[in-house]
């Protein structure tokens, strides 16, 4: 429990906090560029957050304590998870054994759950739509996520993300095994679902197309900023798990020196760039589908997770 | 001598295929097919007698001729002969003269495939022969190109091909199982499998046998895989229905029986035989249910085929000398009786212009000779004495009690009674119920001598075999039972 390790742990949380809007900005910019538009610029989410923090809060009359609690709980949950996963270093830092992969997943879900409640809380129609859709998707997505975690656990015979990372770096046979490849594919689909990039939602402001955004329509000012920041951090965290634990486990700092940490941060942003490109491509290449077809990618993800688990038995 | 006769047996249909394709007209093709039928029967009868001399192997072990195969060949040849005679008269009535040479070529090809499959020693080649029978007969079923015929042909080919693919899966598993004992490359003859059987893994043997049972059972028409059978047998022309019922089902049954021998040799418990008995009982149940409420005359005959295949499956499933003897005798009598029924049904269809039982009335008054033959055939096919099927069913029931499958034997007896009542009820309606419309014109007499002669030819032996079970048959059956039961030859 040296001072350096504590500093590294704080640096992990701070980097998630600081660079999450950058990732979101990059994804939005790519999407616009792919469609041959100008795009709002990479740093637009920072400007949005800044603007929101300086605005007034307008609270609906029908709101209860959940309205105030949800953004705080969501934001705090997103601050907690980076402690548990390998963001910058590939060795466990203080307090990272507070929870394993399953624990991290549960905390992420807790944040989403509170926001779903908040969408229902004020009684508005759009909040209801958003919450019900989000829950419909979650009903299929959460068990699949659990199955993916089971697959990862069976693959590495341990529930800690650090062990998985070491295993994949150390042994190419496991990296190229069908179990791992299917877990990557299954988790990729879940990544799309959890970051609201399914080819079902549309980026316009029209409420009929919204899945996750409709939950937070009643919020304004700093609370809205917290919620948006929380969802950007959730996206960053999921990308981190995807890259550092599953897909590209190389490039993390072994020793924890300052240079190594900065280099691993740069490598992290580079990996995210690649994944973001693929996500944008998948999302823009497919035309918008009817909402009920959300079952199909989730069924495919379930299938891939099952195949991965079977692959670990073979 | 045996080899020469086998060549004659298979060469006649083969030459007929070429002959029909190059022939000028339908009459020539029909006569050519008839000649092939006569030659095939003339070869099959002495072959059956000679097969007792031990399994003959030819072509480097790829062709085998033993008593079980010989019996199936005999039944197939009988049906081929009867159908060829009938087809000469019947196919003229269809007004399709331009396509008849192709029909007869396919007919001969069908017969050839059935005969060849009974002679195959290698399990994979047997599979291929059965698959070929499916492909050829699908076009025969679809011959009339009516909407119903095409529907029947589609259902037939898809369901049976699926079943046969499952049988291929079972064959692959058997080969794999054998490769532990016989090495990675070997000729998968029935003997080789039987020799390797005691060392085979029991669980794998049971799984492979069940796959083969379901697969070839689809082809045999065992319930619940029988769904194609009423459609295909009712929509095809009457001579083809007779061939399908009387010859093809037996050939597929032979495959199940040969695999059963292998499964018995392996220490696989009661599951293989039990599964066969269950499927046989289920077939009887399904047939009974559908016969009682049937409205279509040819579908009635088709369900009767399901019933009789169920009885044969029960006979082979019970096993032992009585079971095998009963099943084989049943095969022969069924191959005589079912063409008789289909020929009668075909004649009635042509005369009355309809397949519905409710439209066929006063048969006895309008067609005295045919009616007598047909009614006798109906009594025979439901298992009444003094016809052959009564004796064989009795032997199978006895075998059931002897081999501790008493429940199956009781069920069989009960369902046979139900089928007897149901089936003959339809005939009662056709013969003795007055027409609703008394002033209706009597139906046209469209069937000539060619259509009635095979009915005589089928009924006479049926009567004879019902009253006299030749001692030579007993010897033959005992030898076959020994062949199928792994006792030292």
């Amino acid at each position, binding site marked *: 429990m040296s001072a350096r390790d504590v500093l590294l742990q704080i640096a992990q949380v701070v980097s998630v906090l600081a660079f999450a809007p950058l990732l979101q900005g990059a994804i939005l910019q790519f999407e616009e560029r792919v469609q041959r538009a100008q795009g709002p610029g990479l740093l637009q989410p920072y400007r949005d957050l800044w603007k929101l923090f300086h605005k007034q809060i307008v609270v609906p009359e029908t709101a209860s304590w959940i309205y105030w609690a949800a953004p705080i709980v969501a934001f705090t949950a997103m601050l907690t998870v980076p402690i548990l996963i390998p963001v910058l270093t590939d060795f466990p830092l203080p307090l990272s054994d507070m929870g394993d992969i399953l624990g991290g997943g549960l905390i992420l879900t807790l944040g989403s759950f509170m926001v779903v409640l908040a969408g229902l809380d004020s009684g508005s129609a759009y909040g209801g739509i958003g919450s019900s859709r989000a829950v419909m998707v979650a009903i299929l997505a959460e068990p699949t996520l659990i199955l993916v975690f089971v697959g990862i656990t069976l693959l590495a015979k341990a529930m800690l993300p650090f062990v998985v990372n070491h295993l994949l770096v150390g*042994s*190419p*046979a*496991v990296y*190229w*095994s*069908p179990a791992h*490849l*299917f877990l990557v594919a299954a988790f990729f689909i879940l990544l799309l679902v959890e970051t609201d990039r399914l080819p079902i939602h549309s980026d316009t402001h029209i409420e009929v197309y919204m899945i996750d955004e409709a939950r937070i329509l009643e919020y304004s000012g700093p609370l809205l900023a917290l919620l948006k920041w929380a969802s950007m951090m959730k996206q960053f965290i999921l990308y981190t798990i995807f890259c550092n634990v599953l897909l590209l486990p190389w490039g993390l700092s072994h020793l924890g020196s300052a240079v190594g940490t900065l280099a691993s941060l740069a490598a992290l942003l580079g990996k995210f760039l690649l994944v973001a490109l693929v996500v944008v491509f998948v999302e823009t290449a497919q035309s918008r589908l009817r909402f009920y077809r959300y*079952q*199909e990618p989730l*069924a*495919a993800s*379930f*299938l891939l997770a099952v*195949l991965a688990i*079977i*692959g670990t*038995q*073979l | 001598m045996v080899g020469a006769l086998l060549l004659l047996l298979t060469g006649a249909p083969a030459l007929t295929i070429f002959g029909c394709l190059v022939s000028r007209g339908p009459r020539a093709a029909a006569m050519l097919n008839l000649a092939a039928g006569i030659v095939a029967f003339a070869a099959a009868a002495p072959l059956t007698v000679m097969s007792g001399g031990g399994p003959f192997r030819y072509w480097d072990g790829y062709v085998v001729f033993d008593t079980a195969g010989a019996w199936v060949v005999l039944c197939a040849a009988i049906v081929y002969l009867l159908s060829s005679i009938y087809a000469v008269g019947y196919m003229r009535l269809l007004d399709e003269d331009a396509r008849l040479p192709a029909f007869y070529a396919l007919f001969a090809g069908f017969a050839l495939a059935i005969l060849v499959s009974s002679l195959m020693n290698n399990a994979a*080649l047997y599979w*291929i022969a059965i*698959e070929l029978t499916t*492909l050829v007969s*699908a076009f025969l079923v*679809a011959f009339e*190109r*009516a*909407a*119903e015929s*095409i*529907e*029947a*042909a*589609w*259902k037939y*080919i*898809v369901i049976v*091909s*699926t079943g046969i*693919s*499952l049988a*291929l*899966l079972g064959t*692959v598993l058997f*080969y*794999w199982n054998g*490769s*532990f004992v016989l*090495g*990675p*490359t070997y000729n998968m003859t029935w003997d080789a499998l039987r020799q390797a059987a005691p060392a085979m*893994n029991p*669980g*794998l043997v049971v*799984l492979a046998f069940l796959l083969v049972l379901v697969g070839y059972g689809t082809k045999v028409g065992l319930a619940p895989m029988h769904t194609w059978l*009423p*459609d295909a047998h009712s*929509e095809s022309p009457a001579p083809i229905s007779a061939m399908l019922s009387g010859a093809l089902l037996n050939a597929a049954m032979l495959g199940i029986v040969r695999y059963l021998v292998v499964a018995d040799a392996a220490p696989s418990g009661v599951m293989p035989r039990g599964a066969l008995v269950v499927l046989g009982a289920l077939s009887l149940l399904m047939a009974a249910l559908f016969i009682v409420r049937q*409205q279509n005359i040819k579908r009635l005959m088709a369900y009767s085929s399901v019933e009789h295949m169920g009885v044969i499956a029960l006979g082979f499933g019970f096993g032992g000398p009585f079971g095998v003897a009963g099943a084989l005798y049943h095969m022969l009598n069924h191959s005589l009786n079912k063409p008789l029924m289909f020929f009668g049904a075909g004649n009635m269809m042509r005369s009355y212009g309809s397949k519905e039982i409710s439209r066929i009335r006063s048969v006895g008054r309008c067609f005295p000779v045919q009616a007598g033959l047909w009614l006798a055939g109906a009594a025979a096919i439901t298992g009444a004495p003094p016809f052959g099927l009564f004796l064989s069913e009795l032997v199978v029931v006895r075998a059931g009690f002897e081999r501790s499958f008493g429940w199956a034997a009781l069920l069989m007896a009960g369902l046979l009674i139900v089928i007897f009542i149901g089936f003959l009820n339809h005939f009662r309606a056709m013969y003795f119920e007055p027409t609703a419309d008394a002033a209706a014109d009597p139906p046209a007499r469209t069937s000539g001598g060619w259509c009635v002669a095979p009915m005589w030819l089928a009924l006479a032996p049926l009567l004879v075999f019902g009253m006299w079970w030749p001692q030579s048959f007993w010897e033959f059956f005992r030898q076959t039972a020994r062949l199928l039961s792994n006792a030292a030859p």
Partner: protein
Amino acid sequence: MLLTQLDPLAASLFSATAIASLLLAFVMLGSRWLDNYLYAFAAQSWAMAALGVAVGYFADSAELYLIAALSALFRGLVLPYLIRRMIQRLHVARELHETLRPASALVIGALGVIFSLAVSTKIAVPLGLGGTVVVLALTVMFATALIGFLMLAIRQEAVSQIIGLLVLENGVRLGAQILIPGMPLLIELVILADVLAAVACLSVLVRYLLSEFGNASTAGLKRLVG
């Protein structure tokens, strides 16, 4: 089995190819478009040919290369070409009525794979082949066969049923390639020719269906009941 001594990386790639061909069967379950079925089937045949080449390499047998090449040619090129011609003659490009939603079909297929794994383990463990490629081969074989069977059951277009039948045969072939590579060459060739003949006959029947009913959908084949 001769394939139990692969080094781990090669074993992983081998497993990956086998399971990839299983995955292509799932593509057929999850899609509605006839063209997707066709391309997935062709890709599966090529993946199986690649597996055949790998088996031939590890078993040092030139015969297996020949069989793999012929399989790739016939199942990977000729059959898809025949089926493509059939699809072009139809007026539909996708399944119009679904008996089972694609998502539900995928889930049932996944359950089928679990069942196949259970059966394969139950067979392989008493034989002492518990952790080897045999379990993989049996699982993929049974699972692909079950998926082909499922496709046959739930699809209504005649062409989809034909492709389901071909997937069923592909599954059997996949298992046979790995488990019994020593099957005599003659038998392999005859089975291949037989599959071709079956597809040819089925395509003629599809033409009959088209000429009689105007479409090749089996949903209208309801005349024969009882």
